[in-house]
């Protein structure tokens, strides 16, 4: 599976184009005067924050008969991706969500995410996923308006005045889930233990038997 297909799969599973992966979907006429969040801003998460991201990710992709998200060091991966690949607005939304997460846990369960039972963790994330769906739909609606405003401002579609459109940040949970899926399935353990991978196939066979349940190729 190539990167583009993977991004598509993750988008399907999270109901949203992958944050930081959207450059694939640039529209005609855009692409000038891009002012992105500068990646040399020092962006660092604390060890506890990384652990928390690992813990959330492990709830989304747990250890089964194969290792889960924690073994794939998905928390560390998220830090790198948010630092280097997110725009400033996306980074801010991610950090806000992360900072706010512990108090959400306290509010709803009177304990930290780490001390919650597996069932509680699962329940909380499912609730967040529902909340994220509504939130993201609102953002998409607002994006439509902003895009319309941009188009109106440049009615004659003057090439020199076209600006790149940056969509509003998605819900924190959506970002975490996307990064979890992306990070896990492209990790060494994800690719070789949960999925199957042969580095140098040496031949091609387009007609091999498949028995239901066999793992997919990475």
């Amino acid at each position, binding site marked *: 599976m190539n990167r583009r297909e993977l991004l598509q799969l993750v988008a399907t599973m999270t109901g949203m184009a992958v944050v930081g992966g959207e450059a694939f979907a640039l529209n005609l006429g855009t692409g*000038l005067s891009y002012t992105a969040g500068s990646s040399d801003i020092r962006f660092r998460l604390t060890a506890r924050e990384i652990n928390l991201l690992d813990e959330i990710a492990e709830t989304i992709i747990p250890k089964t008969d194969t290792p889960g998200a924690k073994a794939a060091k998905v928390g560390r991966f998220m830090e790198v991706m948010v630092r280097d690949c997110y725009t400033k607005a996306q980074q801010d939304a991610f950090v806000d969500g992360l900072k706010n997460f512990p108090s959400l846990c306290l509010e709803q369960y009177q304990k930290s995410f780490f001390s919650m039972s597996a069932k509680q963790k699962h329940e909380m994330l499912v609730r967040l996923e529902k909340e994220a769906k509504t939130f993201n739909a609102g953002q998409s609606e607002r994006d439509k308006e902003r895009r319309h405003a941009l188009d109106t401002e440049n009615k004659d579609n003057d090439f020199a005045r076209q600006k790149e459109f940056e969509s509003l940040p998605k819900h924190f949970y959506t970002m975490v889930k996307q990064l979890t899926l992306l990070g896990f399935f492209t990790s060494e353990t994800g690719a070789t233990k949960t999925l199957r991978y042969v580095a140098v196939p040496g031949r091609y066979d387009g007609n091999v038997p498949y028995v239901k349940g066999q793992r997919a190729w990475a």
Partner: protein
Amino acid sequence: MDENFYDAIVIGSGISGGWAAKELTEKGLNVLLLERGRNVEHVKDYVNAMKENWEFPHRGGRTQKMIEDYPVLKRDYPLNETVLDFWAKDSESPYTEVKRFDWFRGYQVGGRSLMWGRQSYRFNRWDFEANAKEGIGVDWPIRYDDLAPWYSYVEKFAGIQGSRDGLDVLPDGHFMPAMELNCAEKHVKKRLEEIYKGQRHLIIGRSANITEPLQNRVNCQYRNRCWRGCPFGGYFSTQSSTLPAAMATNRLTLRPFSIVTQILYDKNTKRARGVEVLDAETNQTYEFKSKIVFVCASSFNSTWVLMNSATDVWEGGLGSSSGELGHNVMDHHFKLGAGGTVEGFGDKYDFGRRPTGIYVPRFRNVYDDKRDYLRGFGYQGGAGRGRGVEIAEFTIGKELKEAMSVPAENWGFNITAFGEMLPDHSNKISLDRTKKDKWGLPVLAMDVELKDNEKRMRIDMVNDAKEMLTAAGLKNVYTYDNGYAVGSGIHEMGTARMGRDPKSSVLNGNNQVWDAPNVFVTDGACMTSSSCVNPSLTYMALTARAADFAVNELKRGNL
């Protein structure tokens, strides 16, 4: 002898320049091969070739820093961390977009031969006749039969895998054993051939991947990582193929970091006497002299060199007396087609990562078919069994992990159309002297757009795809048109076209500049029309043919 004197100078080391260097050295000439970028040594410098995806910090993605540094490259797939080394930095080499033009460049030894798509097709006999017949642009000064032996010649050496299908519209060549169609593709092929009674075909994409050992190259290992440079030499590139052959003659001098700023033109002899080079690292200027010059710097940069040469004689540069230098820009327009699912193969899977797909040769405006536009298009694509099965919304945990770890229920099938673009005088590039690159050199300004013929063709490109896939029994058929920006086909052509008359073309039938017969342009710039097939194989054949002609003319004392 003057140490700066060579029999021949070749500007550019990509697909065309590599072939020129090989042919000219093998025919006994001392050759200086100039490349504007750094050296890339075969295998040794393919720094990402053996890395696994998880070894890349962003798993093959793109960072905000990359997006800032590559405002053009970011518009499409080439911008990612696995191949970044091989694409020219936009910030160092800007250009002007009068209209949007996506220009993706490879500035290093090997040029874009390192990251090309490798699809390799011959033009057919109608491709060479259509301009004259339809009154478009100018007539090609050659016909298919002039080029056919040279196609064979380059196919044998480059190594092209493909099937022999006996089609007029896509002539067979000297092929290595074809890569295999997978079970879903075979099924669709059979259906299409039944439904269209042999008028439409589906074949394996012919590509410059070797399926048997060739020279010192190991056959393809089915990793599908060609664009990172292949440590096995499994695909054709300058490094894997033509450069070692040229080196083996001991008559090749390769000089990286050499930006050719102009061809030095002698008014009295009406010949080039050499080139001026700006060293990209030291900014020093050098002159190198030669009997002949092969300009293979990629279409637009070859044209740029001509525009900057002999400006004391012709204001618009060498070859501009025709009024056509920089005009008639062509690319292939694409990014639209259809897809769907092929049911009934849930008990089949594949092994290995095949570095080519399928090809549906042109069927529009051939034989008795007549459309409301000229020329036609082909489809590229293929079938694959994706990953992931549907699950209920808001499912996480074990079930989600499981659902994303197994193959999709059915095979997916997708085709993208690649259409011919007509030469049009108003589609042009020119020098923009108000803007300078990192070396203080003027840049190009692009003023190119799709015209009505292409726009009408695009309607068929989508509809025909949908009709064929539906007829073939695919389910969930969808169509798409992602919009095409000129240049993004990375098949720039036509800005110094061949022709029969110096008043309307820049080059003659042997790729000689009419105004300087010892200057040959054999890359995409020389193309008189674009066909709808990928053009690189044609550049190889034209280059080998022109090199043969040049050496014979030198021997006869005509140059």
